[in-house]
């Protein structure tokens, strides 16, 4: 009887299909068109574009023509609900200690914001970056806050939102915990800066999605929705049912970006996305 009641309750937690956004991060061994075809075939309606090589070219001096990309996406009846230019793979990150690299990074992320607006994505995700682990955390935090404030000004100018995601402890000492992100949001204090809830990083740090909703509420404009370290749901052990319940209870309707990226999926990322959809299907509102 209890089991039946629980099942009935679970069925009440439904999300709209548009919220599930496929992501191209795990398609890096294939072309961008291959990714778009896969999204269409799998029935995705939304995508979040990971703007990194080999799918999107951006550096501190130029970026790829977005018209062609936009048309390719439109022709497949897909909608971009999120965008980012990569900060994790060398060369560009928001908290560089070296002034020259810091300025290069500012130009790079500014170009990313410009591309984001042209692609008509409402959000560009960014992380805090990192300082050297054996140098002052406070100095690194200040550089990151300075960068995020300057970029928030740009984001406002371009009519998009900049959304800050937290990182794992092995990646940064600046914005890892909920407390760190709150500290950064207060330091930057700009209406164009919002929050991305990265479920992998949140639970890696021993926190919960419910705590993040409690702290940031409507400032959460999107999620990197993965099970632990960029894994498929069901492989990392995160409490999917209660997380979906949190999402519904807080009336969150932003994009759930499926940022899966484990090497074992890269061989056949389409099959991995199919598995993700199979797992998430029971939470999707039927039309």
């Amino acid at each position, binding site marked *: 009887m209890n089991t039946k009641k629980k099942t009935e309750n679970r069925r009440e937690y439904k999300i709209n299909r548009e919220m599930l956004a496929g992501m191209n991060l795990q398609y890096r061994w294939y072309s961008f068109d291959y990714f778009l075809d896969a999204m269409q075939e799998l029935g995705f309606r939304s995508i979040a574009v990971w703007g990194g*090589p*080999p799918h999107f070219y951006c550096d501190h001096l130029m970026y790829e023509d977005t018209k062609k990309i936009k048309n390719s996406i439109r022709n497949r009846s897909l909608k971009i609900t999120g965008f980012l230019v990569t900060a994790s793979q060398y060369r560009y990150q928001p908290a560089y200690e070296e002034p020259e690299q810091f300025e290069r990074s500012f130009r790079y992320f500014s170009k990313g914001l410009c591309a984001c607006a042209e692609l008509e994505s409402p959000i560009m995700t960014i992380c805090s970056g990192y300082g050297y682990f*054996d140098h002052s955390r406070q100095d690194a935090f200040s550089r990151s806050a300075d960068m995020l404030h300057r970029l928030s000004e740009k984001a406002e100018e371009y009519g998009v939102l900049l959304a800050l995601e937290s990182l794992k402890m092995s990646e940064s000492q600046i914005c890892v915990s909920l407390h760190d992100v709150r500290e950064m949001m207060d330091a930057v204090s700009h209406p164009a800066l919002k929050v991305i809830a990265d479920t992998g990083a949140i639970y890696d740090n021993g926190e919960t999605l419910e705590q993040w909703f409690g702290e940031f509420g409507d400032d959460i404009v999107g999620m990197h929705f993965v099970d632990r370290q960029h894994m498929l749901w069901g492989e990392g052990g995160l409490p999917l049912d209660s997380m979906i319940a949190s999402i519904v209870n807080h009336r969150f309707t932003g994009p759930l970006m499926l940022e899966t990226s484990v090497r074992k999926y890269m061989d056949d990322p389409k099959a991995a996305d199919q598995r993700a959809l199979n797992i998430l299907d029971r939470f999707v509102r039927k039309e």
Partner: protein
Amino acid sequence: MNHIGIDQLGINTVHYRYFTFESFLECQRKTGIRKIELFGAPPHCWIDTYGSDDPVRLKEIAAMHGMSISAFMIETSSMRYTLGSEGIWLERSETYFERCFLYAKALGVPYAVIRSNGFLLNRRAEDRCKRFDRMLRRLLETAEGCGMGIVLMPQFEDKTSMIRSLKDMLFWLEHYPDAGLYAGADIASVYEGGSNIETWLSALGNKLRHIHLSSTVFDGNRRCFGDGYLNGSEIMQILDEHAFTGVITLYHDLRKYWTDPLSADLKAVSALGLQETGK
């Protein structure tokens, strides 16, 4: 062990991405390693299609710490610049590689270590092969113009790589027999691909110039010795028995090492069981 000692061992900088170059050098004082394989990416150096920082500065800093840069590895793992680049990326990659060769030359190393990744899987196999051939030829010409050789490092776990196995390596070395093209052996990759270092040493002879030492649990990652299934001491014994005279560097890069890379280095050095030889 008769020939190979810790004084011949080098170490790659890749897993010190959250520490300064000076911190890396200080840590190596504790490991006893005196040779550096510089990983060609930030935070320790900057090279892109537009330019680079000053390599001589790094050489001098290393010398002040009693160390030398004995090898240079071109960064292609971000896929920003790769041998397999297409379209807008191709010309930029070629310029980048030329800058890398000039950087390596200024460091005073005889060759640059490079991987052959970036060939997308939804392209026809014949086209991938033709493009790799064309890129490799151009790369060899550019390297020769800079007075440099090239060491191709295999990468079994990356399916966009054109050199994943010994068979791949032998094919391309035979295709360019007289050029300054040499083989590298990445131990984790070699064993994950079902082969072993003895087979590579026997098949490649003096074309094998560079070894990346790492252990593995056969998941595509490169662990330090003492933290995987391979026996570092046995591998060093094999290299010794074959009187291998090329460059040998530690190359381990796992997320869990990033916060404390020195511990991984010390574990690896201990597992190799090397002594000073005075060379």
